């Protein structure tokens, strides 16, 4: 894969980019960042919210209309195509490459970008940084104060992430007043391109501070050249990818790493009537199907507390028979390549010697008779269901996954959540929610337990 660099609304992709030409394209970075910061937090929030509305409008357009997300290309000369019509073809290609369905992308865009309102974005800054003033400062002003220094250029490495989560990571850097250089993996490159190219239409202020660089994953020299311009790196990927980028980051750069994580779900024995149980099962079905279970918030195992109305086998049966069909119709699985299918088949078959297997149209639910810690999974809609004796036993089981635990969905009394959060915080747990919400984190979610803005900010006390 050759090295490519482009900007939305720029002169076109530079497919012969060199470190020298990269430096030249960044020559006016300070001026661009200054213009972005001149908007202030509220101004940037307004622009980001406007971008989100543009995408949400595209999602909500009538299917088949030329301006609908993913609609077929409209007939006629290219000039007659709306921006969205052209984007649709690109998104279809991007979904194919990313292995997700258009319906999934549309759902994810609604869920994620739907939280990007001006008020919510400003509230996020206030919540994490104590107010907008910390960012909207003029360093030349006299007087003692504490200021928050955002990165000048944030390198966003999107190696492995669900697409809208990657877009949100970029958006949060803009919110802080940072320019962004996005380095997507091959399978995300087209969706990132679609997102960035939309800036030219929906957010030119953000287009002016956004670059995308594509290259082979093992192009260390190029990665080092990219990182040399960034005073902050945000890395979404495997632990190996994180290590590789940490090795090329500038010594003075902030590095925020989102590496390996795993999530689970729990069904308590008591505290739910049949209606609540059905609702919980529908929620778990959504958690399983969202992003085809490939997100760090996707449950790999559902633990069923003993003594409840359903054992693992019955839970599996009801998930398959009652809860999954409607979700599968709404969120069809992405196109899966032979490697995914093979891994999935081998994983399920290997466990059929121990577990009963219940299959829906797109998912497999494996019901075990014994409990076990979280184990690696083939993902792609394969859920393990295991019994657990009690909440205490659940805690002991999940602690074995420390420090990689991410989220836990709890079906049962709401009061359980706080206790589980307290007992599993040191295992990495940073989100406890209701079933159905796992892949719908709020904008304020403290990704990996660190906050989403705080890790990128340097605090300076000027006395």
């Amino acid at each position, binding site marked *: 894969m050759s090295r490519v660099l482009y900007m939305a609304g720029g002169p076109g992709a530079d497919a012969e980019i060199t470190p020298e030409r990269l430096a030249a394209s960044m020559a006016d970075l300070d001026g661009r960042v200054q213009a972005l910061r001149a908007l202030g937090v509220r101004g940037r929030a307004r622009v980001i919210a406007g971008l989100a509305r543009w995408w949400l409008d595209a999602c909500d357009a009538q299917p088949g209309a030329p301006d609908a997300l993913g609609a077929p290309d409209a007939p006629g000369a290219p000039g007659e195509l709306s921006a969205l019509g052209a984007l649709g073809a690109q998104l279809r290609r991007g979904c194919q490459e990313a292995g997700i369905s258009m319906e999934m992308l549309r759902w994810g865009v609604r869920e994620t970008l739907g939280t990007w309102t001006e008020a919510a974005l400003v509230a996020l800054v206030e919540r994490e940084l104590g107010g907008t003033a910390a960012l909207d400062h003029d360093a030349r002003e006299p007087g003692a104060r504490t200021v928050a220094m955002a990165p000048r250029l944030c390198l966003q490495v999107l190696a492995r992430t669900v697409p809208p989560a990657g877009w949100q990571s970029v958006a949060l850097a803009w919110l802080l007043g940072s320019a962004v250089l996005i380095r997507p993996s091959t399978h995300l490159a087209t969706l990132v391109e679609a997102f960035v190219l939309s800036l030219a239409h929906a957010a030119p202020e953000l287009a002016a501070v956004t670059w995308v660089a594509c290259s082979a994953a093992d192009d260390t020299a190029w990665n080092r050249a990219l990182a040399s311009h960034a005073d902050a790196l945000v890395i979404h990927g495997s632990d190996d990818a994180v290590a590789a980028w940490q090795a090329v980051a500038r010594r003075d750069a902030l590095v925020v790493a989102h590496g390996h994580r795993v999530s689970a779900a729990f069904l308590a024995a008591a505290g739910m009537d049949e209606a609540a149980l059905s609702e919980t099962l529908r929620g778990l079905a959504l958690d399983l199907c969202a992003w085809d279970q490939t997100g760090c918030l996707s449950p790999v195992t559902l633990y069923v507390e003993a003594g409840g109305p359903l054992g693992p086998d019955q839970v599996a049966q009801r998930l398959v028979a009652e809860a999954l069909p409607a979700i599968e119709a709404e969120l069809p699985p992405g196109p899966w390549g032979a*490697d995914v299918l093979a891994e999935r088949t081998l994983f399920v078959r290997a*466990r059929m010697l121990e577990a009963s297997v219940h299959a829906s149209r797109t998912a497999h639910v494996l019901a075990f008779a014994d409990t076990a810690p979280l184990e690696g999974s083939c*993902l792609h809609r394969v859920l393990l269901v295991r019994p657990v004796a009690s909440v205490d036993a659940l805690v002991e089981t999940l602690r074995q996954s420390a420090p*990689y635990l991410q989220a836990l969905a709890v079906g049962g009394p709401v009061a359980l959540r706080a206790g589980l959060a307290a007992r599993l915080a040191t295992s990495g747990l940073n989100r406890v929610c209701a079933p159905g919400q796992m892949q719908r984190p709020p904008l304020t979610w403290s990704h990996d337990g660190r906050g989403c803005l705080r890790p990128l900010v340097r605090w300076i006390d000027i006395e």
Partner: protein
Amino acid sequence: MHAPDSPDRSDDRSHDHLWRELALALRGFMADAYEPEQSSSQAPLSRWPASRVTRAGFTDMARRVLAHQAARNPSYVRYAGRVGVDLGRLADPLDAPPVPTDAFKRLRLTAFDPAEAVACFRSSGTTLADRSQHLFRTLEPYRASIAPPFLRYVLPDLGPSPSIHVIVLAPAAAQVPDSSLYFMFDELCGRFGRAGARTHFFGDDLTLDVPALCGALEALAGQDQPVLLLGPSFSYVHLFDRVPDLRVTLPPRSRLFETGGFKGKSREVSRAELHALFTERLGIEPALIVGEYSMSELSSQLYEPGLRQALAGHADGAGGARVYVPPPWCAVRVLDPASLAPLPPGQTGLVAFFDLANLDSVAAVVTGDMGQLVPSQAPGDAPPGWHGLPEGSRGLVLHGRAAGQSAKGCSLAIDMLLQP
């Protein structure tokens, strides 16, 4: 590791008798599977070894092995039931649902009480939980599987009972008793190695005695009898890295056996690079390098036929691809990754085997390797008769591992991280 269900012990003596009968029949089947090789003085070497096994004969034996496993391996029966297959009603035993080789990491898959195991071969891996365990009630089927195809694909020009200098780049089986490969090397040394000659050069601390090995190679280079080198691919690379100035020219018709890849090793070397090193450092002709494909979950081995074909005066015909041929008692198929339905030659899918020599475990296994059966395109380019290959195929080409690279979200298969 989960313990399997215990087989019904109520009529153990009857089952033992049946098992001994079957084991004996299988040993005879394997011993008679190939036509005897003729020495070069009597007839030119044929392009392919001649098989005495017919598809019907294989099916009959497979049916017996499968019936034995259905009677004595409740885990497998339950598995088949969950897949919707009644093992007792299969028209073709090759339709028995294959068990993923990964299952050998999770369960002891045996058609006998594991406490009676005489050997346990494990796959490579960094933790015990990460390694398959293949238990054997007897090593006789495994022993019987080793020599016949090796003789025909690695030593076909040296007569029916060759004796050759052997150098092994691996520890002895006694030093690493859970390695099926090292056991095989020991068996080959015992069967074909020159009596009294040193074959192994690893100390009890499993470090290689490099000076002794180099000395042995140099001494053999000065003789005129061919030498056989046996080793995993990475062992040769390790030797070459340790002794960068090693240059010997082994005698003409010396040949080299290599197997395995570089999974988990510190560096990888391409096949072309490796074979070039064999020639440059050891003087081995490229045509006399034989690749082998097997795994701890199998009892049989597949070989590249290139050496035999070169000695028989035929071009490789593989066009650079590594084509492997099974022995007549081990059927190979390629399965659709989603449905596990058999695919025709030319299509890529998961590699699966029905290995009769897996008498006391599970004969039907599916690996995590992707491959395809190479279609036969010209008369004579496929082994005649039954050689474990579907009709119209001349061998198996591997395309690498299927599993472990697919996850693209931020939740990944993190087996190693979650290991206790």
